[in-house]
């Protein structure tokens, strides 16, 4: 059984991340907890991009209505909406690299106080590839990371410097973990919010990175 996580659970983290989104935004959601964010946007007018060539990603299809020609970047069958448009991969990453996507909400293995992000490889383990992650963090307007604050061994994933190969250098704007919300600011991280039932001391104790406030 998984150890009970302190603070927010996965859905609460996703709900908190959804607060980052504003009406009219075009947004890219990564795999894992970020995918859950779509459940919490409420009546905000958010358009989801799937980087394999789609704006206006809809929910999973009803059973029996799966279409091999309609998948998301996680290769899952999905559906279209009445605002949907399709395009090729070069056009898709043109809009990502060109800063047209307002925000990406992504998972991470490590984040550093200078905004460095590592989420694509662990040396000597299986290397699957970065997919579109490097393009996303380099190109989108705002990068929000959603992840557990510590690893299974209880060690902080919010570091002074990343130890894993980087996905992007100085790219992260905000970190949302089970313990709270931190912003990347000059000199380190700034605590923006504490998760329910988490004290500032607990957050500090679980954070290796410099906290400036």
């Amino acid at each position, binding site marked *: 059984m998984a150890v009970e996580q302190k603070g927010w659970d996965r859905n609460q983290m996703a709900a908190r991340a959804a607060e980052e989104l504003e009406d009219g935004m075009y947004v890219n959601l990564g795999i894992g907890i970020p995918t859950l964010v779509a459940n919490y946007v409420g009546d905000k007018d958010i358009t989801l991009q799937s980087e*394999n060539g789609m704006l206006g990603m809809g929910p*999973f299809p009803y059973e029996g209505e*799966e279409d*091999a*020609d309609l998948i998301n970047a996680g290769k899952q069958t999905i559906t279209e909406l009445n605002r949907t448009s399709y395009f090729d991969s070069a056009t*898709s990453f043109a809009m990502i690299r060109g800063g047209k996507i307002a925000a990406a909400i992504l998972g991470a293995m490590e984040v550093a106080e200078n905004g460095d992000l590592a989420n694509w490889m662990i040396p000597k383990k299986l290397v699957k590839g970065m997919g579109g992650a*490097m393009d996303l963090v*380099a190109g989108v307007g705002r990068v929000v990371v959603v992840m557990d604050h510590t690893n299974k061994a209880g060690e902080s994933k919010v570091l002074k410097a990343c130890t894993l190969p980087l996905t992007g*250098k100085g790219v992260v704007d905000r970190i949302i973990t089970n313990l709270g919300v931190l912003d990347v600011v000059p000199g380190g991280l700034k605590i923006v919010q504490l998760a329910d039932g988490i004290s500032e001391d607990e957050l500090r104790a679980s954070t290796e990175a410099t906290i400036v406030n």
Partner: protein
Amino acid sequence: MKKVYANATEALDGLLKDGMLIAAGGFGLSGIPELLIAAIRDSGVKDLTVASNNAGVDDFGLGLLLQTRQVKKMISSYVGENAEFMRQYLSGELELEFNPQGTLAERMRAGGAGIPGFYTKTGVGTVIAEGKPVMEFDGQEYILERGIVADLSIVKAWKADDTGNLIFRKTARNFNPPAAMCGKVCVAEVEEIVPRGSIDPDHIHLPGIYVHRIIQGPHEKRIEQRTTRKREEA
């Protein structure tokens, strides 16, 4: 100028050569040129370098060419779905050049568009930047990426007319247009060849100038991850 061929083997006749660079369309198993891949396997051509976002799965898509050891090197962004790939890569039998997905797509488009190099922020400060020229624009660092020109492009579309004008369907478009653009020769497989004039010229996704040979055939169109919701959730 006849572009329509009877089958994948005939369409590839004279185009395959050991050691060549092939650009392939598709994302995961969606929109992959499955008939052409099978024909390339049957041809026995070897030492291939293949530029493709993914490497298929063990028994479908480009995975077929890995089973037979016809691929020397892959240029891809994500290969996580293929155990045989991993085995060959970790044992040193297969070379692998990782490209960020958008960089790979843009490299293909650039190669097809006569652009030998372009600057991008993607990968700056990561292993991807190692050995690549850097230039500063407006105070920010960018790395130089090269256009890819392939000896052969293999793509999958939904429909074609006999002049090679192509239309794609939904997210099966993906890497197919940039892959087609970057090939010195491009062979396309489609689900249906339709009469000239039956596609509105404003709806054509890829003009026939990019497509040299066409085949029509039955496609398995395998689904990699069948995710659904129940009707009562509606």
